[in-house]
């Protein structure tokens, strides 16, 4: 796995490629908001690929591990659906059906061949259905909310949640699982910056932003699931990580749907929503650091330790 510089290089690749492609795509499709929206998703795809390419051995093919299936099956499928949504190829009903189907198979795909699906007991199927409902709700809710409001904060918090999830997974002992989050988060950051900056205020902007935000939620869900099931990410930490962007969405939805009171204005304010997201993320980070210090930190060996003949 890369050192700090290698990780920064991967992040820079992901971010750089995503923002350049996003801005160029938006500039080229100035009079075509649909194309501008698709360009945001394409920028995220290529940013992610460029960032992951900078990491050694990620992913390995054929995809026999949870991490590989996450990177080569779940994420591409989610991005393809969001590209369809941005392009307007399918109406809302069929998009909902597609997202529902992918949500239903997400867990079986990520956990394929593992001890988690061995035996096929009723509790396994209940877990799959529960996870599918959570993913479907979060995916649909995020896509719909951002498309309707152009809310950029959800994607920003998703980027932060991806970074914190990666750090928590790495500090819990699965370095490779943790570091992949960094270029993915960087690609999402580049894509939302391109969507927000280059096509500000246009219809395509909200559509592209919605696609990137929704794909980011799927990326976060998948990372948290494999971190929990294959690594040592705790259930509470996994729930808090997923909750952070969802609370931002719910707070904004609450403030918009109710009467225009001072309480609703406070709940809907950027500062309050940022605080709402920051608390669970900081809790996860502090808990991960404490766990690392008491357990794995003592096993660490400096990779640059000199071995003298």
């Amino acid at each position: 796995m890369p050192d700090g510089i290698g990780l920064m290089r991967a992040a820079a690749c992901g971010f750089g490629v995503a923002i350049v492609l996003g801005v160029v795509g938006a500039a080229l499709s100035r009079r075509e908001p649909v194309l501008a929206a698709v360009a945001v998703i394409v920028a995220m795809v290529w940013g992610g690929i460029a960032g992951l390419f900078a990491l050694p051995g990620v992913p390995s093919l054929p995809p026999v591990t949870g991490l590989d299936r996450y990177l080569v099956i779940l994420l591409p499928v989610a991005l393809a659906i969001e590209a369809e949504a941005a392009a307007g190829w399918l109406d809302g009903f069929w998009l909902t059906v597609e997202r529902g189907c992918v949500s239903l198979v997400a867990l079986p795909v990520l956990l394929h061949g593992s001890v988690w699906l061995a035996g096929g007991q009723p509790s396994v199927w209940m877990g799959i259905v529960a996870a599918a409902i959570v993913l479907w709700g979060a995916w649909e809710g995020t896509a719909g909310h951002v498309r309707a409001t152009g809310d950029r904060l959800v994607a920003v918090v998703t980027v932060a949640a991806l970074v914190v999830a990666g750090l928590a997974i790495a500090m819990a002992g699965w370095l490779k699982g943790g570091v992949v989050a960094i270029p993915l988060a960087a690609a999402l950051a580049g894509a939302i910056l391109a969507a927000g900056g280059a096509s500000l205020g246009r219809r395509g902007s909200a559509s592209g932003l919605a696609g990137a935000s929704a794909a980011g939620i799927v990326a976060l869900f998948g990372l948290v699931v494999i971190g929990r099931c294959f690594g040592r990410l705790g259930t509470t930490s996994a729930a808090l990580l997923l909750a952070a962007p969802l609370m931002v969405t719910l707070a904004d939805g609450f403030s918009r749907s109710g009467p225009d009171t001072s309480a609703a204005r406070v709940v809907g304010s950027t500062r309050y929503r940022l605080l709402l997201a920051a608390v669970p993320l900081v809790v996860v980070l502090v808990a991960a650091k404490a766990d690392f210090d008491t357990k794995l930190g003592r096993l660490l060996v400096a990779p640059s330790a000199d071995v003298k003949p």
Partner: protein
Amino acid sequence: MRRAPVLFALVAALAAGSLRAADEYAYDLVHSSVSFKARFLDISWIHGRFNDVAGKFSLDRQDPTKSTFELTIKADSVDTANAARDEHLRQPDYFDTKQFPTIDFKSTQVKAIPDGYEVSGNFTMHGVTKPVTFKLVGGKEIEAMGKKRVGFGTELKLKRSDFNFDKGQIGAIGDEAIIIIDCAGQRD
């Protein structure tokens, strides 16, 4: 008409003889050990063992090529006398025990050699199967504690990189691991 019982008796005797020729042994977990060691920073060795192992083997004394050996190791049972390190080893950077719960060996070819057997077979670890050949020393049967017992020992050198372990985690802990198997089998 008298030929039928004679033929039956002959077949029965042959069948009994062939059954006797291949003795089936169950792996004796209490008196066996599967351990390993790997280089640490190329200055010393880290030792560990697997606590949950199962297996069986059949020994055909008349025709050793018909003997078979099988071993199944629960990867989750890795024990290096350090709980934090064991947790780390169970994760996907190393054994990935939730995805690949067992390490298996199944023989495909057995040959008698002066002090035991030369065994070839398929070794599956971390989702990758590789052919391996090793010398299994032992095989002498004794009767003790109400059972017939036989024991074997071997050392096996494997490269983690051959079994698709994360190359990024090969450095401080060396690529090559030596697996030491000392197992006893028992039958009634």
